[in-house]
């Protein structure tokens, strides 16, 4: 079974702090994704990565950056956390070979609260 893990289930940070969210997958997937989930808005793509050191902006990249130095790990960085970044953050991975028809595998999510 594919396993996607996220470093924290719950995180509380202060406004202005730099925040790191880590995601690790164990199935050698090339593609990795970061979403935020807010009630009534569904899932919105922040960034995705085709492969190591490759990244592309999603629909809402402002205020975020990412790092993919190793294939199994995809990090989301909030450079200066703000209260409007309070949300559930979901990481996912996928096999690039099946990019169009392949399903994603999601981590359990990190619920981030910025105070």
């Amino acid at each position, binding site marked *: 079974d594919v396993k996607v893990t996220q470093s924290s289930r719950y995180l509380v940070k202060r406004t202005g702090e730099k925040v790191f969210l880590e995601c690790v997958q164990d199935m050698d997937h090339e593609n990795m994704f970061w979403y935020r989930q807010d009630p009534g808005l569904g899932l919105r793509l922040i960034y995705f990565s085709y492969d190591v050191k490759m990244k592309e902006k999603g629909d809402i990249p402002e205020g975020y950056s990412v790092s993919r130095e190793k294939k199994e790990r995809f990090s989301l960085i909030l450079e200066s956390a703000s209260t409007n970044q309070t949300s559930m953050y979901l990481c996912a991975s996928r096999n690039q070979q099946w990019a169009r028809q392949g399903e*994603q595998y*999601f981590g359990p999510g990190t619920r981030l609260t910025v105070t």
Partner: protein
Amino acid sequence: AQSVAQPEDQVNVAEGNPLTVKCTYSVSGNPYLFWYVQYPNRGLQFLLKYITGDNLVKGSYGFEAEFNKSQTSFHLKKPSALVSDSALYFCAVSTPKGGSYIPTFGRGTSLIVHP
């Protein structure tokens, strides 16, 4: 632009009754469609997908979905609902982006199954 719509924020059904969660899509070309489920405080789990072929797709946990090209719909169904089916359900369509394909998610439908 590719998109999916889930017209119901919430669906209520009694245990043992059939359930339907609706999804309509808008794509250019052939659609690749997915359903995911999210149980409370968990990440998303893949349920089923339509790529081509038979219009009735069977998936996990007894769920199935009917692809209807003329109505541009991909409704999720189950003949007999269980209380444990109560969860958030997301429809998604594979969308071309930057040389790859990215799922575009609907806003989600909360399914509540009453005992």
